[in-house]
Structure formats: structure tokens, C-alpha cells
């Protein structure tokens, strides 16, 4: 015990600084983070460096669905309408990443705040707050989204809002359960005996202790959100042509799997790499946020 190993003798920069330090020594997480940065760069630069715009139909091709080729500049091939897949995949990655990260962030912020408050305060407050969650859960989600689209018109922001508005419910339930268990732990009682106000106890003693669970759940939410977005787009409620998303591209590619496998391969490879990297990073973050991991 009490050994000052190099990993523990860090500067006392607080939870986040120490977590960053621990994260850096986790090779899988660093690799995953590098991959995410790489994909992000590709998503931003891809449509720019591609010789074709994402809605440009290349009539020179015959048939229109061309396999990947360096010679004609369609590096990932073209889709059945003769549009360049390289440009479309990276443009789709942009949309998917944006939807996934924003919607997840919305659900994490609302869910953690709501759940930690309900769980820590307990009693009647907890009862009412969780009944609100139950009621929102019971609303038919698609109906909710369709009404939103009818009222506000189609937009990408609406998708963030809709997915985030539903995603936080599960997060709130998970966090609330953990907060309820933490509330009776002695260190929380000890914080109460210090006379600390409730908001400070929630922020300093409850939330950091649930972050590990929150981050793992959030990394699980990202692929769900990406798939959900493609489902919404399929119903015509999400991203509209000519814009696209990874989920849509995978769905379109799957339809042509037997005749043009590259149409499935390119977007699904990017999606798989993205999800894999997010999972590794989430795993690393969970470990990094637990000081006992050393």
C-alpha cells in the first residue's frame, strides 16, 4: 500500500488531468483516439479532395455502378446512380458523426443531471422526476418525431433534438439507479456532515462516481444513434437526398450487395472502424476515470 508508483505520483491536477494522464498510458485507447481523429479528418477533407461532388452523376460510366478504380477517379467506386462513393461516404461520415456525437452529448448532459438529482435527493422528488421519465418513455417515439417534422419542417437539427430527447431517458434511469446506491455510501454521508450543499455533493461526489458507467453507456449509444438516424432517413424523416449518412449508404449498399459489393463495403468498413474505435476509447475512458486503475 501507499507506494508512490510513477503512475500515482502525478501532479494533482484533479480528476480530468489525472484521467488524461492515465488515458495516455493506455495504448488501445490512444490508438482508438488516433483512428477517430483520422476518420474525422477524412470526413472533413474527403469530399474536398474528391474530384467529384457528392451529387454529380458521372454519365461517362457504363454501367453507372462502377467498381473502385484509380484510373477514373472513383476510388471507392460509384453507386447505382453513378455518383462517386468516395465523396458520398465521407460526406455521410460527417453527418453520422455529427448526429451521433451531438445526440449522445444531449442525452448524457440531460440524463446525468436528471438522474443524479433524482437519485441523490430521493423520496418524493425522485418519484416525480422518474414518473416524468416513465411518461416520456410511454409516448410513441415515431409519432413524436413525425409531429416534430410536421410542425418544424425537416432539418438535421430536428434529428439531434429528437434522438437526444429520447436517449436521455435511459441514461437518466441508469444514473439514477447508481446515484441511489451511492447516496447511502459513507463518503456521501461524510460529505453531508461537512455541510456541503446538495448541488455540490451531486457534482463532486455522485457524478464522478457514475462517469465510468455513463461513458460506457454513451459509447453504446453512439452506434444506436447512427443506426436510428438511418432508420429515420429511410422513412424520409432524416437526412434528405442528395445528402446522405453512413446508415443510408449501408442500407443502399446492402440492396446491391450481390451485384456491386463495393457499395456495401466502403461505408460499412468506415462505420465498423468508427464504432470499434469509439468502443475502445470508451473502455479506456472508463478505466482512466477510475483512480483505482492506477
Amino acid at each position: 500500500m501507499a507506494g508512490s508508483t510513477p503512475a500515482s505520483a502525478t501532479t494533482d491536477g484533479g480528476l480530468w488531468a489525472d484521467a488524461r494522464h492515465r488515458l495516455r498510458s493506455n495504448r488501445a485507447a490512444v490508438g482508438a483516439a488516433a483512428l477517430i481523429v483520422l476518420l474525422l479528418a477524412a470526413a472533413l477533407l474527403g469530399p474536398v479532395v474528391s474530384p467529384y461532388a457528392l451529387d454529380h452523376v458521372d454519365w461517362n460510366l457504363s454501367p453507372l455502378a462502377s467498381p473502385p478504380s484509380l484510373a477514373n477517379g472513383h476510388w471507392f467506386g460509384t453507386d447505382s446512380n453513378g455518383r462517386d462513393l468516395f465523396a458520398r461516404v465521407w460526406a455521410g461520415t460527417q453527418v453520422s458523426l455529427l448526429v451521433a456525437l451531438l445526440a449522445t452529448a444531449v442525452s448524457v448532459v440531460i440524463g446525468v443531471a436528471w438522474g443524479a438529482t433524482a437519485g441523490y435527493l430521493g423520496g418524493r422528488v425522485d418519484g416525480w422526476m422518474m414518473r416524468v421519465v416513465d411518461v416520456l418513455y410511454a409516448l410513441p417515439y415515431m409519432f413524436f418525431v413525425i409531429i416534430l417534422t410536421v410542425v418544424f419542417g425537416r432539418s438535421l437539427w430536428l434529428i439531434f433534438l429528437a434522438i437526444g430527447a429520447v436517449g436521455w431517458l435511459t441514461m437518466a434511469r441508469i444514473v439514477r439507479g447508481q446515484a441511489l446506491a451511492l447516496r447511502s455510501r459513507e463518503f456521501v454521508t461524510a460529505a453531508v456532515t461537512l455541510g456541503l450543499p446538495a448541488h455540490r455533493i451531486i457534482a463532486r461526489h455522485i457524478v464522478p462516481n457514475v462517469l465510468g458507467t455513463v461513458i460506457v453507456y454513451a459509447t453504446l449509444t453512439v452506434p444506436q444513434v447512427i443506426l436510428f438516424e438511418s432508420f429515420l432517413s429511410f422513412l424520409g424523416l432524416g437526412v434528405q437526398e442528395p445528402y446522405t449518412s453512413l446508415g443510408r449508404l449501408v442500407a443502399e449498399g446492402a440492396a446491391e450487395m450481390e451485384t456491386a459489393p463495393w457499395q456495401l463495403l466502403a461505408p460499412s468498413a468506415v462505420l465498423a472502424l468508427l464504432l470499434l474505435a469509439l468502443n475502445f476509447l470508451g473502455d479506456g475512458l472508463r478505466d482512466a476515470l477510475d483512480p483505482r486503475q492506477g
Partner: protein
Amino acid sequence: MSHDTLLAVRNLSVEFATPRGVVRAVRDVSLEVRRGECLAVVGESGSGKSQLFLGSLGLLASRGRAHGSVTFDGRELLGPDPTALREALGTRLGVVFQDPMNSLTPHLTIGRQLAEVALDRGLLGAQEARTRCLEVLRAVRMPEPEARVRQYPHELSGGQRQRAAIAMALMTRPELIVADEPTTALDVTVQAQVIDVLREARGRGLALVLITHDLGVVAEIADRVAVMYAGRIVEQAPVREFFAAPAHPYAAALLASVPRLDTPPGERLAGIEGQPPEPGEERPGCAFAPRCAAALETCRQTRPQLRATGSRSVACHAPLAGAGFAP
């Protein structure tokens, strides 16, 4: 109430609503802690000694309810306005818990936890707080305090953690520390160190309430003893007089059950026959009567009131000879 009374508990009862009815854990208890004094509250598990102080400080579990009055330096803590309690807690009144493994937040370094209250209340600046951290860690004789402030609780041993917890209570120079079985979870040598630390803190004028079932600890550090049984105080006495001649048969039996160095080898330790009453049980008369060797008929009929003689008080119809109480 004399002018040097720091904490005064008046007719405090603590009740818990359970599915099987109301359980009274603390029944009509009154006691005082003077400035600079160490009061030990002893009793077996379930006697209500912990609930007495959790109740006094508004820290009961959500099903619990405290009735009565608790004043700290003349201000009511249990009134409808929680300001007095919140102001006292963490600054003038510190609490140390039994289990040092769980009473520190796992993801905050020792330095940050120690500084938290002082910073939250704006009592100290960041630099002053850092200096004060090292000061209190030295005061509790933490080895290498400069390294400890950067470490997390799990990197410390049990004894070090308990010392860190005591240091945390000392941060804001409180006038009173309530320690709920601070040595129970530690092994004997570490216990001795923690007792030393508490004794040193007392040397600086700190009042201490020590909740314990370890009479050895009481003899070492306390000025006065209050013995609890079934939610009531049955005897209060200065520590010397208490160990010399306990007045309540329960206190005497408790003392007799402690192994001593001069006990001949092979001799069986004295136990107390029977079981303490169930928490929800209500009976007329003295709660200890069924287990008491000296019980009279009145003991089973009417409950003895706490009566005082000089500096001592006892709740018994037939107090033991030698303690100076009339039968």
C-alpha cells in the same frame, strides 16, 4: 446549562418508521458536552449510541425522525431553519466515521478532499488551503504529507485513511468533533496511533464526542462516560469514578466483561445473560431488568428516572453500593 456548554441535547428521541411499526432507537436522551471536554458514549450494538448523534446532527436515514432539541453554542440545530446546522457542520463541528475505507470519496485526491469545505465556504484561498492541508496532515502524523495530498484514498492504508479523515475534520479548526467508532475498523496498533492523534487534537482545546463500545479506549481518552442501553442513558459519570465504582448494574456487567491483564489464565470471561430488547419492544419498567441479577419487583413495574448525585447520574432503582447513590 452552564456558559461553557458547547453541545446540549435535550429530550432527544429518534424514531424510524418501519413496515412493522415505529421503532424508537433513542428515547428521551439529554446530555451536555462542555468546551474542551471528551465525552465517551458507550453501549453495545443497537443501543442507539450512533443514532443519538446522527439524529442530533440531522443525518438520519430518510425514514428516521428526530424529536427534541439540540443546541450547539446556544443555537438550535434541529429547528425548522437548517441554516444553523449547515453553518456548524464542516466548520465548527467535524464528524469522523467508523469505516475509513468508505468515508473518503474514491476519485478525489486527499488534498482536494481536505480542502473542499474550506474552499466551498470561502474560508481559505487555494494557497492557504494547501498549506493548511499539510498542517493538519502533519498534526495527525501522516508520513510524507507532501506525497499524500496527491494520492487517492485507495493508495493509503486503513490507518492512514482514518488519519486523513480526522485531518479532514480538523481542517477548519472545529470546536467539536464527533467520532463514531473511529477505531473499530482498525487493528490494535493502528488504533493506538489514532487514539494518540485524537488525544493530541484535544490538547488544542477541542471537544470530542467519542462513540464506542471499547472501554479500553474510553479509559485512555475520555473525561466523562455516558452508558446507553436500549436507547436510553442509564449512567453518566466522570471516567475515573466510573471505572472505580460503576453505579448501574449494566455498566458494572459491561466492565466485568472486559478481559484484564490480571485475570487468571483459564478463567472464563464474565458475560451478560440474555439478549438486549428488540428495537421495537416496549415494556414497562427498566429495559435491563430481565438480564439484571439485582432486579427488584419495582424494576419490572416502573421505569427508573435518571437521578443525579454530584457529578454522576444513574437510572436505577437499586444502584450498586460504592457509587454514592442512595438505594
